[in-house]
Structures are given as structure tokens and as C-alpha cells.
């Protein structure tokens, strides 16, 4: 079977770029390349990862400057042609700023950074990110962010729901959504969404942090493996 190739974009201030690279390459065995933000070559990647971190320090607004990096023009074109793009944490924020996904991120309701394991209910399995999760419908994946409070107007929220674009929702370990299970105040407990074409995923939790058994949790690997299987089956 041909191995899919992931491209991990490195913005100045990305700090989960190496984690994504390591998990995909060393733990899961896929081909991976780093893509420098000043370059414009996607190096024949089958899927692009916009990793977590604090691009440009996030001193202005999360993701607001990174979207102007030269590589982003190519990423946007790639996505518009149906290419698979996954934005994780800061990557999700960049996708929102780039207009590839609808909505915005506000500061967490607590106004504090939060890092902990959370549970995600798989709201839709009709996406290449979730269609082969080995029958798991609740995943345990950590969050680590200060601005993960997803916000959109009512019309956008309705269309996200109607079009089945909400992929992950914060829940308890039994898949029940409630306020206590929501680490940041996101509307509708939204943790991850796709675009209408269903090839671009943005999610606040970090699947790359839970791929290796050494760290005691491999739920994140299910998402990457789902993408790989979908791309090459």
C-alpha cells in the first residue's frame, strides 16, 4: 500500500510542528515533510497539517498574521481543489482567519489558558477524519489553549448543524454534552468542524499528543489513520 505523505507547515512560533511530525512519522510510520512558511512548495503532500503553537506570538489575534505567510496561498488553493487540510489548535485559528472555515475564536470563558485531557463526542462519522475510528464514538484527547472558545452567528451555527459540519463536540466520557465538559465555553460545545466540502478540518484538541502508547493514550492516532485509509483505499 502506498503511504500517504503529510506536510507539516512551520510558522514562526509553531511549537507543535515537531510533535505532529514525530507522531506521524516515527509513531505511525507515514511520510512527513516540514513545509517552511516562507516557501511556496507543498512538496507533493497528500494532506497538510497546520500545527499548534503561537504563530507570530499571537500578539495581534490568534492566527491573524500567519494567514499572510507565503505558503498559505498554496494551502488555500490546495484546499479549494479538495486537498485534505487539518488545522490543530493554532492551526484551526489560522483556518478561521484564512476563511477556510467559518466562525471565530474568542478567549476561553475562564480567561485562562487550559491544558488537560478532554472527551470528544464524534458528532459525525461522515468525514474522512472520522469514518474509520474503529467504532469509537468518544475520544480522549488533550486541549492546550487560551483562545478556544468557538463563536459564530446563529445562521452559521444552524448551517454547520444542518450540513453535518460539526465533527467533534466536548462531552463527558459517556458522550453526553454538558457545560462542565466544555473547557472553553464554545458554542454548541464545538471542538472541531469541517468545511462544506468536508476536506478541511479544524479542531482545538491535539490528536498528535496522543498517538504513542508510551504516553498512555492512542486515541489521536485514530484520526490520522482514518485520513490515511480514506486517502488510499
Amino acid at each position, binding site marked *: 500500500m502506498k503511504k500517504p505523505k503529510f506536510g507539516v507547515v512551520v510558522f514562526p512560533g509553531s511549537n507543535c510542528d515537531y510533535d505532529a511530525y514525530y507522531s506521524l512519522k*516515527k509513531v505511525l510510520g507515514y511520510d512527513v515533510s516540514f513545509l517552511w512558511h516562507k516557501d511556496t512548495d507543498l512538496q507533493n503532500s497528500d494532506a497538510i497539517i497546520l500545527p499548534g503553537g503561537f504563530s507570530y506570538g499571537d500578539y495581534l489575534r490568534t492566527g491573524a498574521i500567519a494567514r499572510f505567510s507565503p505558503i498559505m496561498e498554496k494551502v488555500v488553493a490546495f484546499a479549494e481543489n479538495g486537498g485534505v487540510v487539518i488545522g490543530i489548535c493554532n492551526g484551526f485559528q489560522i483556518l478561521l482567519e484564512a476563511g477556510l472555515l467559518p466562525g471565530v475564536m474568542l478567549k476561553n470563558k475562564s480567561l485562562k489558558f487550559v491544558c488537560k485531557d478532554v472527551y470528544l463526542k464524534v458528532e459525525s462519522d461522515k468525514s474522512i477524519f472520522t469514518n474509520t475510528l474503529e467504532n469509537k464514538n468518544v475520544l480522549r484527547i488533550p486541549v492546550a489553549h487560551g483562545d478556544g472558545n468557538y463563536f459564530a452567528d446563529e445562521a452559521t451555527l444552524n448551517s454547520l448543524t444542518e450540513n453535518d459540519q460539526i465533527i467533534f463536540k466536548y462531552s463527558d466520557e459517556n458522550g453526553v454534552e454538558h457545560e462542565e465538559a466544555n473547557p472553553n465555553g464554545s458554542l454548541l460545545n464545538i471542538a472541531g468542524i469541517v468545511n462544506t466540502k468536508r476536506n478541511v478540518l479544524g479542531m482545538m484538541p491535539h490528536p498528535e499528543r496522543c498517538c504513542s502508547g508510551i504516553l498512555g493514550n492512542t486515541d489521536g492516532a485514530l484520526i490520522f489513520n482514518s485520513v490515511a485509509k480514506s486517502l488510499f483505499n
Partner: protein
Amino acid sequence: MKEKIVTLELAREHGLTDEEFEKIKKILGRDPNFTELGIFSVMWSEHCSYKNSIALIKTLPRNGGRLLVGAGEENAGLVDIGDGLAVAFKIESHNHPSAVEPYQGAATGVGGILRDIFTMGARPIASLNSLRFGSLESAHTRFLFELVVKGIGDYGNCFGVPTVAGEVYFDESYQTNPLVNAMAVGIVKTDQVASATAKGVGNSIMIVGSSTGRDGIHGATFASEEISEKSESKRPSVQVGDPFTEKLLLEATLEIIKGGWLIGIQDMGAAGIICSTSEMSAKGESGMKINLDKVPLRESGMIAYEIMLSESQERMLCCVKKGCEDKVKEVFEKWDLHCEIIGEVTDDGMLEISYQGELKAKVPAYDLVLGGGAPVYKRETKRPEYLDKKNNFDVNKLPEVDIYNAFIKVFSSPNITSKKWVYEQYDSMVRTNTIVGPGCDAAVIHIKDTNKALAMKTDCNGRFVYLGPKEGAKIAVAESARNIVCSGGVPLAITNCLNFGNPYKPENFWQFTEAIEGMGEACRFFDTPVTGGNVSFYNESPDAAVYPTPTIGMVGLIENLENITTSFFKNEGDLVYVIGEDFEEIGGSEFLKVIHNEVAGAPPKIDLQAEKNLHKFLLETINGKLIKSAHDVSEGGIVAALAECCIIDEKTLIGADITLPIKTREDFSLFSESQSRVIVSVSPADKDKFEAAALANKIPVLNAGRVGGSDLTINKRYSFSLEKLADVYFNTISRIMNG
């Protein structure tokens, strides 16, 4: 700022003594000019010169074990961990800046210690911090606590290093002078270690990273005096942190070190350009010609004095091989950072600083630095009067109290409860190496592509050190080691952050002297040499010095990932053993403070041999897979430790039915903080093997009961619901902070 005429009066204002001013004149053979006065004053400040502490620091064991680079030789010590890798780690204080500007003070404390690690070529893999504040009942404490935590979090989170362990204590002693000690741990290939040296005539001196501004001028001098009402005016002495730039600086620095273009590199922290130029020259037995016109500035109108003394953050000084300057520049340009040649190496040992066409300073580098011409003093000592009174406090006169309520009260003390409110604000998982994160005895960090991990912890009980400096310092070392061992690690080495009062007060210096003696004895005994660290004197508030607090940061090696051990009970039916003996010691205990409002008595005794035997036994039984959890008994005593074993894994609370011996008084036995004690759980199938191992090692173990149920029951008399314990444990601090 304008240059001033140098007089004895001005020298005094700069914190120099009359003798020191004379010494400067003798070194130069003339009066110093304004720039030179500034240079000597910061380089000879306590913070940079260690003038009052270095003689004693040198008595600590600084080699042996697996040490590759000893204390003081480089920015941080290096310990061999096999596989061609070494671990670099160090702890440093940022107490005074945090007292007046808690957010930036704490943030730049983290930034400074991270640079100390990556300037050696090591990539930071973990960050820890040890914090002391006044009582949480005070609004000022809550303000400091909130912002210090935010400062640490914002810096480390953005930089991308996991903050994985530490400690937070609250006691009135630290009310106006909090302690903020930051520790960083990094990994480097042993053949890629960078040195903080400059040599080879004609090699280039380059400044890289951020531009230079007026922030932090005289930060080092500020750190070398007591906090007072005037300290508020020192806020401009506090630097401003930029973790994003530091992240870029990290990547660029590691890239140029790997490129092989450097002679040496040193970060700029205290005393900025003057400290790095003089220390690198002195180490390389060379000199430098520096032209300040080339330094990228962020403000106009700065004079030479300000540029030399600025403590602007996220800067490095590099000595680059002649001809490799463009390679270095290319890397920094890629990362959008400044990189300028500001001078070259000379061979006459002099630092010649010119600016705007004028020679601004000409001073011998060697005479400025620690280990060179900087003054070394031995201060007067006097045993403080409070000790006899405190040590002779008669605990037997204390009334007996209701155990159930007393326990809930002690267990609700923010000194004991979970620091979840703190550590959930820290990214503890970035870099995907965190196997055991905050909340257990020690953090455990995987070393990628090996079957090894590092265990790490900071520790110090300031009350014990206050009541008996020598014993207290030994306990700090012993307890750190115990925490490492409980996690399955072999203690490797320590770094220390010595937080004390004004050394010119003989009582304070006596505490310092005693603590160093105790620490040295314990470190020699456990073969854990000191890799380096930091001394912070002048931690005083208007009333008195803070409790002497020699914080220990310890790193241990776990040779096999299978040996990683956590502190919480695992399965119903497992047997609970208490290892070690109780001596009903409640001097300096949390019980005494919380229930009787006393910080008195004698600190617990520590028998180093018993402690060492305990470590050997624990590591043997962990290796033999005989124990399923291990947790040390510390603040709050044995019931608190048992309660933690039941609830630390918040997702799976599990009870225990325990019977504990009472010696003379129930309250003393249950709240005693006697040392060298650990609670382990053992599968019933391994009972005989475990007990045989204890017998063979002559270790006293007590079969105290079984794991199971939804309560923690003690001696059939006291039953605590786990739900209540967990609520108190995990939510007390957030309830106080969210008011």
C-alpha cells in the same frame, strides 16, 4: 540619561562599598568614568559576583556521579545519561522582579533559565517552578499568585516547553517578598555541547536576537538589596519578556551550534552585554573590542552606560569563527532576528568599549568576574536568638483536638491541596514526552527514541529550614531524592536555588552557612552532586527575612520505562504498606501551623543512612515489579499521604481501610511529618516476596490495610468520603481564587 561625574557618593549610590571603590581605582590605576562605574557596580553586585556566597558554595560537592560539566564551569551543569546524551538543568530565582511586577518578573524568570539551557546547545524538554507566597487570605497574595502563574504559563506555553512539576507554598513569612524560582531541563548530544567562551584573536563577536532597550537596567543591583517601600520605584528595573522571540532564538541558536561555526555562546541575562562580554573573555583568557554603534537599539538617545547594562531579554552573545559570520547571519535572517557583528576578540585581556567615536570603557575582563577579580567575602555569623525559643516549644502542652475535623482542616490547607488550578494553566504536554505530568511525586519525561525517562522535582520545606537550617536543608535533598525514587528513578544530581535574607545580618548568614553544610552532607551521601544554581540574598520584608529556603531541583534517571511508578492506589484488594518509622514529630508541621497557629518545635530528624536504605529497597522492589504505587509521606502527615493515594488519580477514586499505630498521642502520630516514610501498594500475590525483600534489606514495613471501597477509613474510627476529600483537594484553591 546623562553621564555623571564619578564620586565616592555616586559609587555608594551604585551599591559599592568604599573599599570596593578603592579596589576599582587600584585595578584601573585611575578613577573610573561613569560607564566603568556602572560596569563594576553590576558585575560586583551580589547577583553577578556571588561575593558573599561563593566561598561556601565551593564547599558543596561539584563533581563526581555522572557529571560531565561541573557547577560554575558553564551556564548549567551537564549530566551523562548514556546513549550519547546529556541532561542540562538549572534553577534560578526571580524573586525581586516578581515582587513588584509579578507577571513580567515571573515570565522573564522562565525565559532566563530557558536561555541558560539552550545556550549550551541543549533543547529544553521541561520546565518546573518553585513558588512561595504569603497567606492566600490576603488580596495582595492572590494578586501576586494569579499574575506569577499567568506569567509562567504565558511564557512557557508560547515558547513550547512543557511545565511539568514544581511546588507552591503559602506562609506569612513570604508576604511582601515572594519567591519565584524557575527551573529548566534540556537534552543535548554530548558532541554538540556549546561553551560560554571567547578566544582566538580576530574572531567575531556578534549580538543576536532582540534589540536592546532601556528595560532592566540595574536589575542585577536591584536583586542585591532588600525589598522596601522604595521597591515600587524599581519597576523599570524589571525586564519585559517576549516568548515568541525566545522560541525563534532557540531554533536559530541550536541551528548555529549544530553548524559548527561558533567558538562560544552565552545568553544575556543579568547585567546584559557587560556580563556576557566579560565572562566569555575571562573564560577564554582573552579580551574584546566592542563597538556599541552596531548594537540594534529599540530606543533612541541611549548612552553607553545604558546599552552596556540593559537587561533586555531574548539576546545572546556569540563568538564566531572568522569567515563564518555570513553563515550565522543567514540563519538569523531566516528566523527574522537581529544579528550584528559588534566587535572582535583580542589577546590583551581588556574589554574596550567604544561608542559614537569615543572610548567609553577600558577594563580588564578578569577583574570583573566571579572567580577572577570580583571581591570574595566571608561574612560574620551568629546563631539567631529565636532558635532556642522555637526549638524548645513544648508540644506536649498543646490540647488534643478532634481528629476528623482537624484532618479536614489540614487537608484543606492550600499547602497540601492539589495545585490543579495552577498547572492546568500550564501546557504540560507539548513536545509529547510527558508520561507523568503535574500532580504526582515527580514528573516523568520520556527521552525520545530511547527506553529511558527522566524524573524531576523541586523541593524545600522553608519552615523546617527556619527551625533547623542544617537539618532542614538535608531534608530538602532527601525528600527530592525520595520523590525521584518513588517515581522509579535513580537520583542523578541537583541544582539549587538558595533564597536567604540579607547576608550582612549575621543571623541570616548563620542560616546560610548551616544550610550549605547540611545540603553538602546530604548531596555527598546520596552521590548527587550540585550542577549549579543560584543564590538569592536580600529576601526580606520590613519585619524580617523570609524563611531560609534552599530549593532543591533534582533530576533522576529511569533506565527502563517499565519502572515508572505513580503515587496512586490502583486495584481493590491490594495491600497497603507503610515503609519507615514514625517518631511523632510535629515540629514545623502543617498541623501545628493550621490547627495551633504555631511555626515552632524542632524540625523532624533525618537519618541519611535510613533514607538511603529506603531508596535502595524501593528501587529493588520497583525493579522486581513488586509494588504498584509509591507515595512519600510529607506535609500533613500520614493520613494526608494516604488520602492522596486514594484520590490523586481524579478519574478513578479508590478507598482504603487502614490501621495505623498510635505511639503516645493520636494527633501527633497521625499528623507527624517524620522523614523517610513511603506508602506503597502491593498485590496480594506478591505479599511474601515483598516482605522477604524488606526483611533482607532490614527495612521496617507495616502492613497497614487494604485498598478498596469508597471511603478512607483510619483505625476503624475515622471514615472520610472520597468524594469529599477529592472536592476539598482539587477545588480549594480555585474556590479561593474565583472568590
